[in-house]
C-alpha cells in the first residue's frame, strides 16, 4: 500500500465486542457481520489493489436503523464508511480498520414510480440498470448509464456523481436528480428536494451529489426519468492519426451536433477489444470513433449523413454505419468491454479518469506515450471524446515487485498532465483514496479549506468516511476561525462614489 490511511483508534478497537453488541441491538439477525470470513467480500471496492478488513459490517434495511446506527457511532466517536455495491474505482468505499462499514445493499425497493411527474422514488441499493428496467415497459429510462450499471447502486451513483457514455447529451447523475433523503452523522434525517424541478433554498442536493459518502448516508433518491428516443444508430469511424479524430470530434460539435454518445479508442485499446469481442474493428487505424445519434428516424438519418461528411473532411479512412439494432450493439460491444478486454492482455491494470479540454488530446496522448516508455508500462486509452474525459488503462503486474508503485506513479503523472493542460483530476470516478494526495495539484490550501468547512456543516466530528478525498484533515474549530485583518479604517484604497 502506498496510500496511507488515518491511524486506527486503538481505544475504539478495544471496545469492538461492545460495539458489535450495540449494533446487533439496532439491526437484528444477519444484519451485523463480524466474523473475518464473512467480512471478506467487503474488504475492497473496485480499486482492488487496496484491501482492508473493516471492524464490523452492518447492513440495515430501514432509514430508522441507519439513523440509530449513525447516532450510536456519533455518540461513541466511531467512524463509519458507507458502501453501495462496492464498484468504486477510486477506493471511496475502502473500509477502515476501526470503522463500521455501513452497507446499503438491503435498500432494494423502488418506492414509487410516477410517470406523470417523470420521477422515480427509490431506495439507494437498487442498481442503476434495475431502475431503467422498472420503467422500460412505459418507454422510459434513467439516462446516466455507467458501464458498471448491472452492479452499481443508485446511492453509489449519487455519491460519486457517476457518468456514462450518454452524459454528453443527457448529463451526469447530478443533472438527473430531483431529491433525496439523507441521514447525517448525528442520526438526523433530512429530506432535500422532491418531485419539483428545483429545491427551495440552497441547492443541497447538488452538494450531496458527488460527496463520496463524506456528508451523509443517502437512504432515498428521487430521479428524473426520460422517454427513450425513437431510434438510435451508430457510426464507427477510423482515422490514421489521432489528431484527425480529435478534429472530427471538434467539428461535429462545432456544427451544432450533440451526439447521444461519442467515444474514442486508441490503437492498443482497439486491438485488445477486437481480440476479445470480435466487433469488426479496423486494426490498421490509430484512432476509432464510435458516434451514436438518437432521436426520431428522420433526424438520425440526416445527422448520420452530416457526421459522415464531417469525418470524411477530417480524413477518415474507414466508416461503417449501423443498419440494425444488432449492428449498433456490436459496434458498442468492444467499447463496453474495453476494461475486461484489457484485463485479458495484462495481469492487472489501473483505470485512470482525468478530463482535459478536447483540443489538448493530441498533446496529452503524445506525452502519455513518452511516459509509457519512461515507466516501462503499457497504456491503452478509451476516451469519452465528446466531453474530454480520458480513461487511460495502465497495464502492470502486481506480482512483479515495484510494478504497482510504478503504475501509480505513471497514473499520477497523467493526472498532473491533465491539470497542467487545463483539465481536472477526475471526470466521473471520484477522488476517493486514489487521487486524494493529488488534490493540491488542482486546489490551493484555501480552496481545500473551503471544501472542508462545508464538510463541517454536515459532520463536524469528521466521523463519516474519513481519509477519503482530502489529503489533510483539519479540525472544524480551526477552519471556522475568521482572521480579522489590519486597522480600523473601513474599505481602504478602493475607489468610492
Amino acid at each position, binding site marked *: 500500500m502506498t496510500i496511507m490511511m488515518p491511524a486506527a483508534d486503538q481505544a475504539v478497537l478495544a471496545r469492538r465486542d461492545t460495539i458489535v453488541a450495540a449494533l446487533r441491538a439496532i439491526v437484528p439477525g444477519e444484519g451485523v457481520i463480524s466474523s473475518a470470513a464473512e467480512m471478506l467480500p467487503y474488504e475492497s471496492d473496485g480499486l482492488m489493489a487496496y484491501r482492508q478488513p473493516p471492524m464490523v459490517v452492518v447492513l440495515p434495511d430501514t432509514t430508522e436503523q441507519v439513523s440509530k446506527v449513525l447516532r450510536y457511532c456519533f455518540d461513541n466517536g466511531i467512524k463509519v464508511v458507507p458502501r453501495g455495491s462496492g464498484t468504486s474505482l477510486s477506493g471511496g468505499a475502502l473500509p477502515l480498520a476501526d470503522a463500521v462499514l455501513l452497507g446499503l445493499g438491503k435498500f432494494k425497493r423502488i418506492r414509487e414510480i410516477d410517470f*406523470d*411527474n*417523470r*420521477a422515480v422514488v427509490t431506495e439507494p441499493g437498487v442498481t442503476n440498470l434495475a431502475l431503467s428496467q422498472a420503467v422500460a415497459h412505459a418507454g422510459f429510462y434513467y439516462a446516466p448509464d455507467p458501464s458498471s450499471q448491472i452492479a452499481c447502486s443508485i446511492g453509489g451513483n449519487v455519491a460519486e*456523481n457517476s*457518468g456514462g457514455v450518454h452524459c454528453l447529451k443527457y448529463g451526469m447523475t447530478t*443533472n438527473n436528480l430531483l431529491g433525496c433523503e439523507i441521514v*447525517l452523522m448525528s442520526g*438526523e434525517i*433530512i*429530506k432535500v428536494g422532491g*418531485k*419539483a*424541478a*428545483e429545491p*427551495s*433554498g440552497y441547492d*443541497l442536493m447538488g*452538494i450531496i451529489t458527488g460527496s463520496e459518502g463524506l456528508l451523509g448516508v443517502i437512504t432515498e433518491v428521487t430521479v428524473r426519468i426520460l*422517454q427513450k*428516443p425513437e431510434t438510435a444508430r451508430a457510426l464507427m469511424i477510423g482515422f490514421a492519426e489521432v489528431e484527425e479524430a480529435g478534429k472530427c470530434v471538434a*467539428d461535429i*460539435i*462545432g456544427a*451544432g*451536433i*450533440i451526439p447521444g454518445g461519442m467515444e474514442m479508442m486508441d490503437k492498443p485499446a482497439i486491438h485488445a477489444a477486437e481480440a476479445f469481442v470480435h466487433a469488426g474493428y479496423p486494426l490498421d487505424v490509430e484512432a476509432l470513433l464510435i458516434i451514436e445519434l438518437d432521436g426520431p428516424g*428522420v*433526424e438520425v438519418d*440526416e445527422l448520420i449523413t452530416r457526421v459522415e461528411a464531417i469525418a470524411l473532411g477530417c480524413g477518415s479512412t474507414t466508416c461503417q454505419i449501423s443498419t440494425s439494432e444488432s449492428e449498433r450493439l456490436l459496434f458498442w460491444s468492444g467499447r463496453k468491454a474495453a476494461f475486461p478486454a484489457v484485463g485479458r492482455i495484462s495481469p492487472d491494470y489501473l483505470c485512470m479518469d482525468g*478530463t482535459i479540454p478536447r*483540443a489538448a488530446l493530441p498533446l496529452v496522448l503524445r506525452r502519455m506515450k513518452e511516459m509509457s516508455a519512461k515507466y516501462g508500462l503499457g497504456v491503452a486509452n478509451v476516451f469519452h471524446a465528446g*466531453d*474530454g474525459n480520458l480513461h487511460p488503462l495502465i497495464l502492470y503486474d502486481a506480482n512483479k515487485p515495484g510494478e504497482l508503485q510504478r503504475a501509480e506513479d505513471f497514473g499520477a503523472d497523467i493526472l498532473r498532465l491533465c491539470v497542467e493542460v*487545463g*483539465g*481536472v483530476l477526475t*471526470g*466521473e470516478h*471520484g*477522488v476517493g483514496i486514489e*487521487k486524494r494526495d493529488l488534490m493540491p495539484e*488542482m486546489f490551493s490550501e484555501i480552496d*481545500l479549506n*473551503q471544501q472542508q*468547512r462545508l464538510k463541517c*456543516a454536515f459532520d463536524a466530528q469528521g466521523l463519516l468516511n474519513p481519509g477519503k478525498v482530502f489529503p489533510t484533515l483539519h479540525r472544524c474549530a480551526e477552519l*471556522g476561525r*475568521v482572521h*480579522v*485583518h489590519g486597522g*480600523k479604517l*473601513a*474599505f*481602504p*484604497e*478602493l*475607489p*468610492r*462614489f
Partner: protein
Amino acid sequence: MDILKVRDALDVEAAVRAAIASEQPLEIVGHGSKRMVGQPVATNAVLDLSALNAITAYEPSELILTVQAGAPVADVLSLIDSKNQQFSFEPMNTSRLLGTPDIGTIGGMIAAGLAGPRRIQAGGARDHLLGAHAVSGFGDSFKAGGKVVKNVTGYDLCKLLAGSWGTLAVMTEVTLKVMPHAESERTLLLRGLDDIKANKAMTAALGSPFDVSGAAHLPGSALRTTQGPLGEIAAADESVTLLRLEGITVSAKHRATSLATVLSAYGAAEIVEDGASAALWADIRDVVPFAADGPRALWPVWRIVCPPASGGALGQGLAKGSQGEVIYDWGGGLIWAALPPSADAQAAQLRKLVNAAGGHATLVRAPEAVRRGVDVFHPQAPGLAALGERVRNSFDPRNILNRGRMSRGPIA
C-alpha cells in the same frame, strides 16, 4: 451609503476583510437589476462588481465560456450568439417583470439562477455553471469546479453558488457551459383548454418521446391585457397552451406533426415556426403577462415551483382563492402568480396550498414594506433550514455578504 467599485478579485478580498474588521455587512451588486428581490438587506455599504467585466476566454468548440462576474449579460449573449451558441437554460430577463432598465450581469444571472422554459429539458443555471472564482465571507479567494464539462473533483461548490443570491460568496469569475442554438423550432398552439386539461396535455407531451423543450399554459384572463406577441396570438378570452420542439429542421417538423397527433384529443393544434415561435417563448420566459408596465403592475408576483402534474390544480385553486392570475411554465412545474395587493401578499394562504402540493414559493415582486413582513423565500422544515444555515455559515460566518437577504430568521 458607501459604494465600493472593485477592480479585481484582490479588491474584493480587501473589501470583505475590511468589512469583517469593521463588522459592516456588504450588499453585493452587479448592475443592481434584482436588488428588489429578496428580504431587504441591512447595510449601508455596496460592493459593486460591474467593473469586473472582461471576457476571459471563449472556446466555442469546447462549449466553454469564462467571464468575469460583472460582464453585462447582453454583451455576453451577443458574443455567444455570434457563434450560434446560447445558454441553454434560457436565463430569465427580469427587467419587464420588475420594471428596471434592461441591465444585468452574468454574476447576478447565476446568483439568481432563474431558468426559463427550457429548464425542463436542459436544466437550470446550476447545471451550466462549471467553475467559479469567488471570495468567501472569510475574505479569501477560492476556486470551485473547473473549466471542463465533466468534473467530479471535490465537492461541487458551484451548485451552491448558483441560486445563492450572493449570500455565500462574491463570484468574481465564472466558467459556463454554452450550447449550440437549435436549427429550427416549432410551437404547437392549443386553444381553449382549462388549466386542468392543459396540465394533462402538457404531461402527455412531456411523457412522449418527442423531446419537448417548452410547455406553457396561459389562461385567457391572464392574456387579456397582454401586449406584444403573446397578446397577438390570444383570441377573445381564450387560453393558449404552447408546446415547443427544437432541433434540425426535418426533426422539428416531424416531431411537431407527431405530437399534434398524440394530442389530437385536446383539439387541433396550430403550428408557429422559428422567429415567431422564439418571440412567444421569450415573453413567457420573462413573464410579460405580469409586466411592471401592465395593468397588474401593483400586484405582488410569486414564483412557485411544484411537481409538474399537480400544477394545474394548484394554480387553479390559487387563482380562485386569491382573485389573482396565474400562468404556467415547465409543464405545470412552474407557476407565476400575480395576486391582488395585500399587506402580506397573501403569503399565508398561498403557502398553505403550495405546501400541500409539495412545492415552494418565492415572492419575486413586492414593495419593500411587504417584503419586510413576509418570508420572501420559502420557509423550510427545521432540520433542513438549520443545515442550510450551517452551510451558509461555512462560507460566511460573520454574515457579511447580503446579510439577511434569503432569510428573515434571527441573525447570530
